[in-house]
């Protein structure tokens, strides 16, 4: 059943959903896309961030986004520490990225178990005045539950994109992905760059966690449902490209919303991942991936 109201609302929700997916994936575009670290625990870190927001929101009434931003430096430090362990255990010995996968599987389970021990297994949510609010323009509704995370996600994603492309350190991160040897010859320690980049990747998890718990309630293992999705978005966007990740997230959000509305929600994942396969078949490096980069 087609109508302008349905179409316009599906497009709006698709855009908002795309922004949410971008927030979930942008950190992984750094760790997996640029640094070739298969951080399968990335969604688990997002849920950790979400639970931190929950505890401060329920105990002290703090806004979840504020909590997410406040804890971003702590996640950054955690990221640098985890990378240190990963480097000493795997990268220094020349192990392939896939061997580090087991390490991050372990990290994922540790996070889940700690969350269960501390918070229990029940679903938890946050309260904020804007969550139940919506704007209406004619037949189009914009729920703030999705709109506020979209705005924050855009700021974070575009900020990271600007940082990667316009700052010295951002370009150093790109250089690590392109040619580590050349970087060493320029007297830059690649592992130091990677450590800071991985820290940044985890810092985004703190903010993404805040957005997650605004969009939907959380329980400790819910992150697992998004592992495939975030990796697919990063690959579809092109490894190492934050702009590509944003476009891919928008594409996925839009496809899911339109298919759910007009053809049925059970078709949405199949169509979304078919789009992924189609794009990769035409352009194996992803939407904005670098030519010659076939890591995906």
């Amino acid at each position, binding site marked *: *059943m087609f*109508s302008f*109201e*349905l179409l316009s*609302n*599906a497009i709006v*929700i698709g855009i*908002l*959903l795309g922004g*949410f997916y971008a927030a979930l994936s942008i950190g992984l575009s750094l760790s997996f896309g640029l640094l070739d670290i298969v951080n399968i625990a990335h969604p688990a870190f997002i849920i950790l961030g979400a639970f931190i927001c929950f505890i401060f929101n*329920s105990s002290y009434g703090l806004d979840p986004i504020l909590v997410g931003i406040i804890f971003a430096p702590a996640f950054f430090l955690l990221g640098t520490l985890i990378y240190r362990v990963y480097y000493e255990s795997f990268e220094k010995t020349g192990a392939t990225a896939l061997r580090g996968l087991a390490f991050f599987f372990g990290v994922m389970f540790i996070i*889940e178990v700690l969350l*269960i021990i*501390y*918070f*229990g*297994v*029940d*679903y*938890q*949510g946050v*309260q904020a005045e804007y969550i*139940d609010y*919506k704007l209406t323009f004619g037949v189009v*509704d914009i*729920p703030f*539950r*999705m709109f506020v995370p979209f705005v924050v996600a855009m700021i974070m994603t575009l900020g990271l994109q600007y940082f990667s492309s316009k700052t010295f350190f951002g370009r150093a991160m790109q250089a690590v992905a392109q040619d580590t040897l050349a970087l060493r010859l320029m007297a830059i320690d690649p592992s130091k760059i990677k450590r800071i980049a991985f820290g940044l990747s985890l810092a985004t998890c703190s903010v993404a966690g805040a957005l997650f718990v605004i*969009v*939907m*309630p959380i*329980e*400790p*293992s*819910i992150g697992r*449902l*998004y592992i495939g999705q975030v990796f697919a978005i990063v690959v579809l966007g092109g490894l190492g490209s934050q702009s590509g990740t944003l476009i891919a997230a928008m594409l996925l959000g839009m496809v899911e*919303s339109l298919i*759910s*509305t*007009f053809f*049925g*929600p*059970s078709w*949405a*994942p199949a169509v979304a991942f078919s789009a992924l396969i189609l794009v990769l078949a035409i352009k194996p490096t992803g939407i904005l991936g670098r030519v010659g980069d076939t890591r995906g």
Partner: protein
Amino acid sequence: MNIFRLSNLRSLLAVFAVASFVFVATNVAAKDPIKIGFSMALTGPLAGGGKQALIGMEMWADDINAKGGILGRQVDLVYYDDQTKASNVPTIYAKLLDVDKVDFVVSGYGTNLIAPAMPLVKQRDIVFMGLFGMDNNKKWKHDKYFQVMPSGPDPAVDFSRAWFETIMQLNPKPKSIAFVAADAEFARTLKAGAEVNAKRLGMKVTYNKNFKPGTPDFTPIMRAINATNPDVIYVAAYPGGAQGMTRAVSEVGTKAVAFGGGMVGLQFAGIMKTLGPKLNGILNYDFYVPEPNMNLYPGVVDLLKRYQKIAPAKKVDLKGWYLAPWSYAYLQILGDAVNAVGKIDHAAIAKYIHATEFTTVVGKVRFGKNGEWLKGRVLTVQWQNIKKQGDLEQFAQPGIRKIMAPAAFATGKVQPFNSLR
């Protein structure tokens, strides 16, 4: 015969030694605990229910052991976390039976986690008590399967019968219905049964789709449903989807006069507390609610008081309304049956359970041929008068989940969905 001859003495000694050994071994074996094994969702999406159920089961074990156990032997519960993953269940039950050598197995929580155990229990031909399974025995026809969820003899259809009887009390009577269900065995089976009820009442189906678990936003689905203008909306979902649809109908609104049906999770304390007034008007299933007439179940009030003292420290559902009485009851039935039969004989125990009406903490329970309840007792409740978000105690008061059906338990009359929002 001279008994003092050495050879005769040796023979007597040997007989005496063997007899002593048999006597001691028999007594030692007789004092071994009776082991009841099961998998339970202690992590994953259904852990909120699984952990609640486990506490009910542990309370039963404590109670039965305080009374001397089963057949004079203490009861030991042996369990493993199935992580709400069906793929983990077969190996867990194989381990329970072949390695842990349990005397009985009972099911974990929920249709999806019971189904994978059915082939094994059927093959071993053993008694298997089920906890909240939707029609798991339809295919297997196992004569030793007994299910404590009060659906009725045809579970998929009977589960929603009271819901449909309730909506037909609205004026005007609804003529069209939209169905939406999670892509999971329980929800799809429930929806199939509801479709039978809708057809029986001559209702037109305007929308009928499934969604994947983990869907982050349900507003596109809600809008698509509204576009078909159904009179009522039937939702079959697990906690994530139930919350998502509740939020979506709150954001988008609907003209439907009834919304709800088979939404698992709205009965969990944490979810009630989070959703608060968004629940008003929803017409959903339940099994036990703190309405005064439900206190007639013998022992349930005390059971819940004991549960609610333990729950905070264990970080589980603080109220235990949904599962604790039922997980207690399904072991209560097993224990009573074994004690009545007087030995571990699965055929005799199954025969006894089929032939007996049990008095339990959830009232009288009688099973039919297929192991489902002879007469269903699923409640249809309508959420009303919820004022605050984040306040769990308001849900402990009567009048919040008014019982619409069955008539014998009714405490209210159904009202159109939007009139309560």
